[in-house]
């Protein structure tokens, strides 16, 4: 293979990986700390895309300022989810399934509301930057893609530092490792759950804002990313943040390579093949604990 092609695949893979990492981290975080599978994750991704649209079209902001709306709105939605959909079931029998049903119902009602408010026509968010990056006259990536990769990776690194250094970051990790002992440290579980679901949704919203510039905005923008995010967190080891991020980049690189070698149609199939193989041979995932 030509060196140029390899570089191109590598860049495409890292680009995909960064977006995948961003869209799955929130899901794995909520699962690890709160113990809930948030099926509304995809709907928050969709809403994140539409909030940029609102910022651009209705408020007259630029893309970056629209991200502020995205962040505030997705945090708000996270708080709503935790307070009204997750918390009422906490500690009761059927918590696991009931939160899945209700978050799914929340997601579908959001899709309905989006359809009513914004209509069925697909929308496209503009590029943040319209240049291209060339190496010896060959385009290797657009500046828009570069900006997204840099933003995504900076967000992930900041979050990593937060988890390592900040009191609440440590609390999130502590709860995911031993909820019982975490209480004995004086951690107020409900407070940390609220923050965790908020931050998890913030990740979803921001990744939706990014995805909306790459794919078309539709009331179901987040559906496939939700499924992909599930595959990624299963592959990475449910609840493991570093596993999720590693899995996102591995799958991104793999997908770009397979897309080139076998055709784009295969790239989704490969995803699910990965999931099946993971569940068959390493059910705990890349970084998960053996059950």
């Amino acid at each position, binding site marked *: 293979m030509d060196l140029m092609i390899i570089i191109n695949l590598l860049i495409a893979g890292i680009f995909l990986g960064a977006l995948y990492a961003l869209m799955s981290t929130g899901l794995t975080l909520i699962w690890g700390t709160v113990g809930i599978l948030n099926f509304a994750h995809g709907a928050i991704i969709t809403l994140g895309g539409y909030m940029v649209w609102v910022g651009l079209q209705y408020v007259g902001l630029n893309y970056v300022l629209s991200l502020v709306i995205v962040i505030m709105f997705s945090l708000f939605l996270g708080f709503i989810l935790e307070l009204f959909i997750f918390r009422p079931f906490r500690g009761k029998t059927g918590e696991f399934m009931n939160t899945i049903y209700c978050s799914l119902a929340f997601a579908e009602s959001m899709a309905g509301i989006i359809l009513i408010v914004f209509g069925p026509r697909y929308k496209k968010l503009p590029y943040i930057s319209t240049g291209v990056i060339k190496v010896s006259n060959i385009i290797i990536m657009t500046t828009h893609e570069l900006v997204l990769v840099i933003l995504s990776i900076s967000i992930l690194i900041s979050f990593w530092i937060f988890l390592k250094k900040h*009191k609440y970051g440590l609390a999130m990790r502590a709860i995911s490792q031993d909820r019982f002992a975490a209480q004995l440290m*004086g951690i107020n579980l409900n407070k940390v759950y609220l923050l965790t679901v908020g931050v998890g949704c913030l990740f979803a919203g921001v990744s939706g804002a990014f995805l909306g510039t790459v794919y078309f905005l539709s009331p179901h923008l987040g559906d496939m990313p939700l499924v992909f995010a599930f595959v990624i967190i299963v592959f990475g080891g449910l609840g493991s943040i570093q596993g999720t991020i590693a899995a996102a980049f591995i799958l991104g690189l793999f997908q770009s390579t397979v897309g080139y070698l076998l055709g784009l149609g295969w790239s989704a199939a490969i995803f699910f093949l990965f999931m099946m193989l993971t569940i068959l041979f390493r059910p705990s995932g890349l970084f998960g604990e053996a059950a």
Partner: protein
Amino acid sequence: MSLLKVSNIEAGYGKVQVLWDITFEIGEEEIFVLLGSNGAGKTTTLRVISGLIHPYNGTITFNGKDLTKLQPHEIVEHGVIHVPEGRRIFPKMTVYENLRLGAYTKRAEKHFHDSLSIVYKLFPILKERRNQIAGTLSGGEQQMLAIARGLMGVPKILLLDEPSLGLAPKVADKIFGYIKEINQLGVTLLLVEQNVFRVLELADRGAVIENGRLVLSGSADELRDNPHIKKAYLGL
């Protein structure tokens, strides 16, 4: 003057009652021990005190304040620190991160650096291994970390549940030595132990729980000389 007052506690898990009419008092800077066989209700008593289980009846008073209806994190804020059975350190975090979490409350956070130097002085091995992942420590070191993490919370009373469980006798001796030292720092201790002989040498006073009821209480010497204790727990 009593620091902790447990009055007429009836408690259990759901509808399964485990404790009946448990009453005892612990004085300041005392080492108080709860004895009893497996399943007698010692751990449940500690859980009631630290708010993990709310009792059906009875009250827990600490320093004159009623803790009975408080949540676990609020009780920790009062300086009642529970080091649970089986150590329950955070296995994928470093020793230092575990200690930081021990000082999570606002009250303990203020004293973080002082507490850390006290803890490192008491357990030099933890200072040496502060960047090691806690799950890779030996059993004895994990128990030290669990106690140290409890001390980081600036306890007024430390509840220790089976600190010698699963440790080699020599290591257990070391842990009992540390408990004495911690007491000398001015920390009141409520100890749950199966190692009755060792713990009665250490304690000031104690009580015996059998089948969820308090059957005996008194000074350590009285307990040691009690014919029932001799027969049932010391095998004499």
